[in-house]
């Protein structure tokens, strides 16, 4: 039988890329240290070649999936000829080896972008930044080639593949991992800049200026990636939850929290030259969290619905990689950080202090999530037994820590740099306070139930929105707002919108588990849902039972809903595909359960008020980040 040689090209490209990465990582760094120009200048071309090789490798893998080449083991394990094309491509990153290839591909992509957009940056700095990125890529390529080669062959080839887990056969798979990895990997740039500046011994405002747009861009992707994952879980899993504090979710949330702190810290370092050590440390920690997350998901130390097939041998390798990268960075930090200069003075009451305070809370929040996620492991390692730390813990601990952050959010932008009169500032916000209090008291009453927690949610979110509106009004009196300003407003309002969504859904959602025969009706949230019929249906690689439901109010039918119960050819577990009628102010969610006697079905219906504001808020935040990056002062760089 003839086997294609194309996968071998992909494999070879990786090996070449390893060689190039070593050159990219080692020579420019030594060159910068010793002043050897001929080694410095290798950085850019090496980065470019690296990226092209990874692109080839990635495209080869994608091609293997596209043409159903089951002589490649990874393709045979994760794909199937009956799988729709779009999911065959998504399956490229549906497993450990392929998703790791995506990781490295994106890493070289970011490095390539830095190489192309840094023409005005001092070449010693460029060499160091690209060098660090090269070292990271080297480590990961070694890992892939040694333990996780996606191009391993299966000879003789399988007749057909094992197919993709039905849960992953969804548009969510196509977008969520790439977005998420763009975020994770993007923090490597801020990391590289931080290491480079520690190496030069020059921690100054210029470094912060360069780092900022890269960090913001990575943050945008991470925000979108997490939001997509949450939304996907919500509509795919069938019971309407949107966050489970699962270890893998936490692994993505911790870098986000640190990244948010980093964004704000970079702003201060750029403007006022302060917090340099702290910002550098945060940049190191943010990327370390990305690497830690990668370790947690692939090593088997934690139980998670998301975990890839685990292999302790891989775990050891990633742990060594993690130790080397993070350990050496923190060592460098301990050596060099004390040398940096202090930056401008500021009084106890100033914007700097408020931002630093916000940072403290964000870092404590991230540390708490880390503590909760790793605690079972800690207790087990000390032979003190086995415990579980789940949502009740995280909710109890996370919410109180975030309350001060939300409170400060509304105040910070009003404070002036260097020194601010806190009392005068609060006087300006009296209107916002009033609006917040009114909202906190009125809205729960209107929705039908008042609790302290829901009131707090509305208090904080309206406090932030009202403060934002007042800021915008004040700004328009002074002149046209900068994109940076718009970005800040969108970002902050985005959080408030998010909080409104969470509060509304948490407090006022309704759920009913009922028995329905055709013609039966159930009411929820002021809507009526009537079962019309249930009949079989056919999909490209599954058989289904499909229900037709009418959704209406006041006697008129407004929409139809078609939930399904699917039996995929490749899986024995039936899958529930819920039907959602989404709206600006509510989702109606219908899930088809088990068949019952008497031609009836178990049906679960949800009324979820304002649930889409959760992800809408995330979108606003990401949009805010986009405006911030597009600010005019960064245009100069892009023009070159």
């Amino acid at each position, binding site marked *: 039988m003839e086997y294609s040689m194309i996968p071998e090209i992909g494999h070879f490209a990786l090996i070449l890329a390893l060689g190039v990465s070593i050159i990219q990582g080692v020579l420019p760094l030594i060159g910068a240290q010793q002043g050897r120009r001929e080694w410095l200048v290798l950085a850019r071309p090496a980065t470019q070649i690296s990226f092209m090789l990874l692109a080839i490798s990635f495209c080869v893998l994608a091609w293997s999936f596209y043409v159903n080449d089951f002589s490649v083991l990874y393709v045979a394990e994760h794909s199937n000829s009956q799988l729709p094309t779009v999911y065959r491509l998504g399956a490229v990153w549906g497993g450990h080896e392929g998703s790791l290839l995506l990781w490295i591909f994106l890493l070289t992509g970011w490095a390539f972008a830095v190489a192309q957009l840094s023409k005005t940056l001092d070449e010693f700095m460029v060499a160091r930044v690209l060098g660090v990125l090269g070292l990271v890529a080297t480590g990961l390529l070694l890992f892939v080639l040694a333990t996780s080669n996606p191009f391993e062959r299966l000879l003789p080839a399988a007749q057909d593949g094992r197919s993709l887990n039905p849960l992953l056969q969804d548009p969510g798979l196509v977008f969520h991992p790439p977005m998420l990895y763009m975020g994770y990997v993007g923090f490597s740039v801020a990391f590289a800049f931080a290491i480079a500046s520690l190496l030069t011994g020059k921690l100054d405002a210029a470094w912060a200026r360069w780092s900022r747009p890269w960090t913001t861009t990575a943050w945008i992707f991470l925000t979108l990636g997490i939001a997509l994952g949450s939304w996907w879980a919500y509509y795919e899993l069938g019971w309407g939850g949107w966050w489970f504090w699962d270890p893998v979710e936490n692994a993505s949330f911790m870098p986000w929290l640190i990244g948010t702190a980093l964004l704000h810290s970079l702003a201060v370092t750029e403007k006022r030259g302060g917090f340099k050590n702290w910002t550098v440390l945060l940049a*190191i920690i943010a990327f370390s969290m990305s690497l830690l997350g990668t370790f947690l998901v692939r090593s088997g*130390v934690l*139980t998670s619905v998301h975990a890839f097939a685990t292999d302790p041998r891989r775990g050891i390798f990633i742990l060594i990689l993690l130790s080397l990268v993070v350990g050496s960075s923190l060592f460098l930090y*301990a050596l060099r950080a004390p040398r940096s200069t202090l930056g401008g003075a500021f009084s106890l009451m100033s914007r700097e202090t408020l931002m630093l305070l916000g940072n403290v809370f964000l870092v404590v929040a991230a540390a708490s999530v880390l503590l909760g996620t*790793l605690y079972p*492991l*800690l207790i087990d390692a000390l032979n003190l037994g086995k415990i579980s730390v789940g949502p009740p813990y995280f909710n109890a601990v996370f919410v109180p820590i975030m309350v001060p952050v939300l409170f400060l959010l509304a105040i910070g932008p009003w404070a002036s740099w260097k020194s601010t009169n806190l009392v005068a500032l609060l006087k300006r916000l009296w209107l916002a306070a009033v609006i917040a209090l009114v909202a906190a008291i009125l809205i729960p009453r209107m929705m039908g139930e008042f609790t302290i927690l829901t009131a707090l949610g509305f208090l904080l979110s309206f406090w932030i929105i009202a403060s934002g509106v007042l800021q915008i009004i004040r700004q328009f009196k002074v002149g046209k707002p900068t994109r940076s300003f718009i970005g800040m407003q969108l970002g902050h309002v985005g959080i408030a919108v998010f909080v409104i969504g969470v509060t509304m859904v948490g407090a006022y959602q309704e759920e009913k588990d009922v028995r329905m025969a055709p013609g039966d009706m159930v009411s929820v949230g002021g809507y009526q849902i009537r079962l019309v019929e249930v009949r079989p249906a056919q999909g490209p690689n599954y058989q289904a039972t499909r229900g037709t439901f009418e959704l209406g109010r006041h006697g008129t039918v407004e929409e139809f809903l078609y939930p399904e119960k699917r039996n995929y050819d490749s899986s024995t577990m039936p899958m529930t595909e819920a039907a959602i009628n989404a709206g600006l102010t509510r989702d109606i969610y219908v899930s088809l359960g088990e068949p019952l006697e008497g031609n009836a079905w178990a049906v679960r219906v949800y009324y979820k008020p304002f649930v889409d504001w959760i992800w809408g808020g995330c979108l606003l935040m990401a949009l805010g980040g986009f405006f911030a990056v597009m600010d005019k002062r960064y245009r100069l760089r892009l023009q070159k």
Partner: protein
Amino acid sequence: MKAKFVIPLILFVVLVGFLAVGLNRDPREVPSPLINKPAPAFKVPQLADPSKSFSPADLKGQVWVLNVWASWCVACREEHPMLVEMSKSQVAPLIGLDYKDKRADAMEMLVRQGNPYNLSALDNDGRVGINYGVYGVPETYVIDKAGIIRFKQIGPITKDVLEKSIYPIIAQLNKE
């Protein structure tokens, strides 16, 4: 002032230490809180003759082994030869608890693969299993003369487990 900059590195090293230890642990294994506690009482019909019943009290005064199994469980079928070997060595009575199974299927498996059990009892609705903290068959308990659970094996019994854990503990309990 210099010392504080080393703190992140120290914290990280401690973290890596724990993660390294964690690599050798199985986060999904649920250790039993019933070790050194009395074996929960129950009374269920025997598999072969439903008119007769079985209860742990029947074996008071002996060291015995309770093996929770089922015909639908793949790992149980893999473990079965080890149980046959153990029953041949006659170190302790081996009682089977057939968990959430159909009598016909269970009897058929015993015929096909051999019957290592002195007797098997049928736990139809899984209630006995719950009282014993069973969460995934096969699971095996070693119970001493006073009716106290002294050892639990989660997962199939391998040759290693038999020789390094089960035989030694039975020998030790017999001396008591």
